[in-house]
């Protein structure tokens, strides 16, 4: 008999469970851990004896090694009640399933689970997602290692610490975590989007529906078209509409262009009138026109505003970083007449009106211009954003360099 400090789940599952006097009590089918702790402890075991399957208290179990084999022994099989919300069954919910590797920020499949035996109990420490785990399950790891050893080679193994693991419940499984996907919501929206894209459609919608609204809107923006379509078509209308209201109108217009017409209409009707009208206007622009990619969220001030008033207004609005590359100046008829940079504002006296410091030489494009002309203008004048005007020279939108880069990438992807 040898003490063990850690072991792999695959080495004990299916093994016989013995009583203290070496009588076979049944077979170990699953281990159940409490999911509330960062380091989850095994609290129960699922043991099958004959046709009878029962969940029993794990605190009477000991695991040790004899002649290279793991032996599971228990003082008694005492049935125990476990709460579905706070527990995870390792074989049923984790082994062979997809999880999110929070550190690598991607979806992986679990080949094995590593557990540690401490004086206070048995704990999960890591999941194995590497080739070695796969081969161990096939019973090939040991012989292969023997063959490879003289050659000085080893089988790559990859473990992820349990702290970095987020289990994924599929809509069909009965895994219900009390704090659903709390780890996922700490990720950057574009990382989270990458992860969601890798999931199957049902799980996609499921994970998405558990995010809070702000996060969900950010993630939706970052998803690829296919995933966007899937999410918007599978979420309840009200919820989807709420999300869309939180997004910039141009992004919404892009997304709605891609989904089923009926559904798009449904969503537009559900959205607040002001928001949906902005989107509708943008959707009316033909593809490849500046209007179809511009954003209508921009900041403009009238000519008589002073520097001080302008800065105060900016403090109040707290605009996104890419909205304040340039501050546009318009006259009373909303016609574009100048542009002021943050630099100009900062170095001028507080009481100076904007018309004195603005540059009257504004480079702009018209809403019906071709997108290609934008690229030339932006690179020629090294701009970060270009204002868009209508036929009466009224300022109606802005194209930010990010959107153009996206547009260019899209064209390139289509060609490929």
């Amino acid at each position: 008999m040898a003490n063990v400090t850690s072991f792999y789940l695959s080495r004990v599952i299916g093994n016989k469970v013995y009583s203290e006097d070496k009588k076979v009590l049944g077979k170990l089918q699953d281990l159940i851990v409490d999911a509330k702790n960062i380091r989850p402890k095994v609290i129960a075991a699922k043991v099958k004896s004959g046709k009878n399957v029962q969940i029993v208290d794990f605190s009477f179990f000991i695991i040790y090694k004899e002649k290279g084999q793991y032996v599971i022994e228990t003082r008694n099989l005492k049935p125990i009640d476990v709460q579905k919300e706070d527990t995870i069954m390792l074989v049923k919910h984790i082994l062979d399933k997809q999880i999110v590797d929070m550190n690598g920020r991607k979806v992986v499949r679990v080949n094995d689970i590593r557990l540690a035996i401490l004086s206070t109990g048995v704990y999960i420490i890591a999941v194995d997602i590497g080739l070695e785990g796969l081969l161990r399950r096939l019973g090939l790891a040991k012989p292969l290692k023997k063959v490879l050893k003289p050659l000085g080679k080893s089988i790559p193994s990859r473990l992820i610490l349990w702290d970095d693991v987020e289990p994924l419940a599929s809509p069909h499984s009965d895994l219900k975590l009390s704090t659903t996907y709390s780890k996922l919501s700490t990720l950057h929206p574009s990382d989270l989007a990458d992860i969601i894209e890798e999931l199957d459609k049902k799980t996609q919608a499921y994970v998405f529906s558990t995010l809070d609204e702000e996060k969900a809107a950010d993630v939706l923006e970052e998803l690829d078209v296919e995933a966007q379509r899937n999410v918007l078509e599978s979420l309840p209308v009200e919820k989807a509409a709420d999300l869309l209201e939180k997004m910039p109108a141009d992004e919404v217009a892009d997304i709605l262009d891609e989904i089923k017409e009926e559904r798009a209409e449904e969503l537009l009707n559900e959205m607040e009138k002001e928001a949906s009208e902005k989107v509708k206007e943008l959707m009316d622009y033909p593809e490849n026109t500046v209007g179809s990619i511009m954003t209508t969220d921009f900041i403009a001030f009238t000519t008589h505003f002073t520097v001080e008033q302008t800065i105060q207004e900016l403090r109040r609005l707290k605009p996104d970083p890419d909205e304040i590359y340039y501050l546009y100046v318009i006259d009373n008829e909303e016609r574009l007449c100048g542009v002021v940079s943050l630099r100009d504002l900062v170095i001028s006296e507080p009481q100076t009106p904007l018309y004195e410091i603005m540059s009257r030489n504004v480079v702009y494009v018209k809403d019906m211009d071709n997108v290609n002309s934008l690229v030339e203008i932006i690179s020629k004048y090294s701009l970060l954003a270009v204002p868009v005007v209508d036929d009466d020279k009224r300022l109606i939108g802005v194209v930010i360099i990010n959107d153009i880069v996206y547009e260019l990438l899209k064209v390139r992807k289509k060609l490929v």
Partner: protein
Amino acid sequence: MPKIAKEQRLKRILFMLSIIGPGLVTATAGNDASGIATYATVGAMFGYKMLWGLFLITISLAVIQEMAARMGIVTGKGLSALIREHFGVKMTFFAMITLLIANLTTTIGEFAGIAASLEIFGISKYISVPLTALFVWYIINKGSYKKTEKFFLALMVIYISYIISGFLAKPDWKEVLKNTFVPSFSFNSSFILIFIAMIGTTITPWMQFYLQSSVVDKGVDVKNLKYQRWDVFLGAFWTDFIAFFIIVATAATLHKHGIVIETAEDAAKALQPLAGKYASALFAIGLFGASLLGAHILPLSTAYAVTEAFGFENGLNKKLKEAPVFYGLILLFIVIGAGVILLPNIPLIKLMIIAQEINGILLPIILIYMLKLTNDKEIMGEYVNSRTFNIIAWITVVFIIILTLILLVEPFLGI
């Protein structure tokens, strides 16, 4: 009032058309190079004698494909992911080895089809096969496979000419009808082998994986399951309708004159009643399209299935370095598929049929996995198999296993 009803009906029809696709595409692609060779050989060797088999296989095909589509819709997951999640690593490994063997032989069959079809135009296989292998690798890597798929499918429409040819050859329709519904059987190994090949080419392991992924890709909602069902049934019927006429046409022309199919040109002769001296060219173009489509689908769908099961990176939007196993498998399939054909003196038509025999023998393994999954309430909920479906699918499984067993013991019994 009637106007509204009409509009609604129109809407429903349009909606149905939007769902139709995966089933029809998969089934049509199932009539690949090896399929054509097998059906043509069936007709040439045994005349109308196996038509009853095709009739029954069509029912099995419809039922089995429906199972795959239903699984895809209900779970939103591919077949290999489901196998891995519910049977564990060992059983997955077994399923994937089965799939690899079946698909690799089919891929070899597809390259055989490419070589055979272009030989009709006098192009040596030593030129055609390496070039198409490079072309396939290029298209897959460029990621424009989905567009290319439609083009190849269009080339396969040429097989409609078998239907016309079947009529022009003036078969004995009474005989055809009788053989379609009255079974006849002979216990010799060539009959059994060809019969297994016929099952193996109509219902293939790869089609189940491919169809389920396509359905998942399309993201059909559970409430539209019934429309997807029609797509699958239509596909099964359409593909076997063509198969039926290939057998009839070859039976009425080749079998009548005792011609055994050894080269692609022999198989093309069945089109002579329609196309005369252009028969070979017509056949060659169709076969080329079918083979080329298969040569794309098989490496790709195998790579997806295997990487999905074992959790390796996959997807055409990843770079070679990011998904080495995925691209490695594709490359391996293309290289072996093309490489085997380049061996001197290899009998192309025979090779295509052997591929289907192996497919047929391995099919029950995949079907058993599918049956287990589609009967699992935890996976399928209320959409588990109906009794009728289970009975038809199990009969198919048992029937193929019995045929395989007969085949194994037959040499010892000396029947």
